[in-house]
């Protein structure tokens, strides 16, 4: 079995002391996993992802990135991950290349490696010609692509993405799936939320279904799905937990 990159144990997060957004959630993401996290709106997906990245405090439980607790050493954990929110609100006053340089400096990516990766991914996502322009002039899809390139710049061990395919053109969506697979072959892991069950079914080797903050199904996609489509399983699982 591959090494565990992300371990979530009994995570509980309550908003305003009343609304339990995540309730005793536990799961493991191993090196090489492409782990899909699915659920309805307000199920607790984004809250879980934000807690994992260390930007949202939680009430109880434990989150470890490569064996290090997010609560004990958040900086060490953050240096191993990359996070792309659902609506990357990048800095409008910087140009694309200034933003990438900024992220490269923060993560201490060497100049030559930085150059190589920027060239590679900017060409792949066809935004090389726009890197000199202000981010404020970018479309949503271009911002998404820039955020993905910045996330790939330091070759993270764990990539966390919230709805990564929203706003991407079909070619970019195809290429990002390729990049995910490449990363996982090299020992990284991907943990992402999505509403697009078709993408989860084709791309992920593991999935987790969350409802009202509780994990109601998780594991290898084959074992969760069985002989049915993921969509059918998803609807069945949701209905069975409503009773």
């Amino acid at each position, binding site marked *: 079995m591959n090494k565990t990159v992300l371990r979530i144990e009994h995570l509980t997060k309550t908003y305003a002391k009343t609304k339990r957004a995540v309730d005793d959630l536990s799961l493991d993401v191993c090196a090489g996993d492409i782990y899909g996290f699915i659920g309805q709106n307000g199920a607790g997906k984004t809250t879980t992802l934000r807690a994992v990245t260390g930007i949202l405090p939680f009430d109880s439980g434990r989150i470890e990135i490569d064996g290090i607790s997010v609560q004990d050493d958040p900086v060490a954990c953050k240096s191993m991950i990359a996070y792309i929110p659902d609506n990357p609100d*990048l800095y409008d*006053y910087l140009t694309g290349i200034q933003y990438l340089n900024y992220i490269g*400096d*923060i993560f201490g990516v060497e100049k030559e490696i930085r150059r190589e990766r920027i060239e590679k991914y900017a060409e792949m996502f066809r935004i090389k010609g726009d890197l000199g322009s202000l981010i404020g002039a970018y479309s949503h899809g271009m911002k998404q692509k820039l955020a993905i390139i910045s996330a790939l710049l330091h070759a993270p061990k764990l990539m966390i993405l919230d709805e990564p395919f929203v706003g991407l053109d079909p070619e970019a969506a195809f290429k990002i799936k390729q990049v995910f697979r490449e990363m996982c072959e090299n020992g990284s892991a991907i943990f992402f939320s999505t509403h697009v069950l078709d993408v989860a079914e084709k791309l992920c080797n593991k999935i987790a279904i969350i409802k009202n903050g509780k994990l109601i199904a998780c594991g290898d996609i084959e074992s969760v799905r069985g002989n049915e489509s993921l969509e059918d399983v998803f609807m069945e699982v949701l209905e069975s937990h409503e009773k």
Partner: protein
Amino acid sequence: MKNKWLPMTKIQLMGLFGINKAKNSADPAIKRKTAGGLAALAIVGAVMIFYIVLIAVSFCKQGIGQHLPALTIALTSLITLLFSLLYGCSSLFAMKDYDLVMSMPVTKRDILISRLLCSYIANLAFALGVTLPCLVVLFAMDGFSAAVLAVTLVGAVFAPLVPMAIATLISALLTALTAGFKYKNLLQSLLGIIVFAGAMVASFSISFSANAEQQIDMNAMFRLLVMNIYPPALLIEMTLDGAIWAIFVFIGASALIAALFILILSLGYRKIHDALTAKSAGSKYNAEKIRASSAFAALVRREFKRLFTCSAYLLNSLSGTLLLLVAGIALLFVDVPSALAQMQLLTDQTARLVYAGFGILIFCAGMSCPSASALSLEGSSRGQLFVLPLSARKILAAKAMPGFLINTAAGWFTSVIFAVKIGAGPLGWITLLVSVPLFCAFSALFGSFLNVKFPKYDWTNEIQAVKQSIPVMIAVFGSMVLGFAVILLGLFLGFWIVLAADILCIVCSAAFWLHFKRVKLFV
């Protein structure tokens, strides 16, 4: 509803100081934070009122209390003009909720009125905060007069309209003129600085030229002073002297100018907004643009970039620095020995001026506190910063750097001129040069500390974070109070007050630095 600007104004006011958020939040921490921030503001306000009362009492004791109403209206109008120049017109254009607001069935006039009303209410609160304590003192010492009360209150209510209209129109013109340029933000900032500095120099030189008129009687001298500070305020003085028509002229002129201003601006509103939000194509990318530096340097560079690409942030955060530079340059043209001789100061009193001068530096540099809003400005994108592998201390130190570096440079510049001009001794020189960076470091770290305690991330326009947020108000008004105290105490205690201030700065800065180690930044 006919007056659609009313609910729009209400929504904006609900966002001020986070009161609505605290009211409707079930989280006691949010309520505690808001209450703490408001309490701190109330303390600062109380100290300011204390100073105003002291000044008003001294006026009444000298038998010139009757000039207080016109003088306070003139001074608050001048301050409104200067602050409105800083405020610019960024609250009117390029707001984040522009699409939402413009898609609603409201007129551009409604939008403009609602945006301007918020500024007006803030200016009115300031005008009443100065005028009412003066009136209380005046009535307590010289006897109550219903006429004086009515005229002064009416004057205070209408006084902010004209300075606001003039300042916002100038800012809108600058914005419209520069909107098409590639580096429009930098250009707007530069022009804004020039206009602001020009207004300050002009108001200082005109206001204090009245000192030369020493032969005329007191009443005429005060009329001249009011006239020089803000000419329309003379109408208040005339009304109190018996010319009832003057107050109606004041009201009519203020309302007319404000209405005209809204009408003119509504004609070009969409055009200016579109020009401002259009982004230039930028330069072509090439591999040479890739360069590396340390994480801290990258953070500081981004802070400077943020400061210099948002004219509202730049002007509001560095107004005190500008004031300091203007004061330094103005000192070059003042014959200080003659001025001191005229004031008939004793030798030891002259020596103490250098220490009182440090109070002016606190007054100005403390007002310039970009770090008090730098964290708030991360707004909805703060997650992008907090997710980076950086300690909170590093982030907060980087946010404190621009204010520290800029204020230290400006402080040294003015201090050197000041020390040369008054002929400071070695102790005076050392005191000024050492105290400047110490205070600037304290001020910058204090700004970061306040911003961590009272962040305002839910802004729709930068101005709400850089001007109307609790940490900025505490930093600005707190430094005014502190500066004024050091000026007064410096004249009596000399070196010791500066030494005490230096020790306090070192202790507090060290405490903030240690505190930042425990800070955790969450969305």
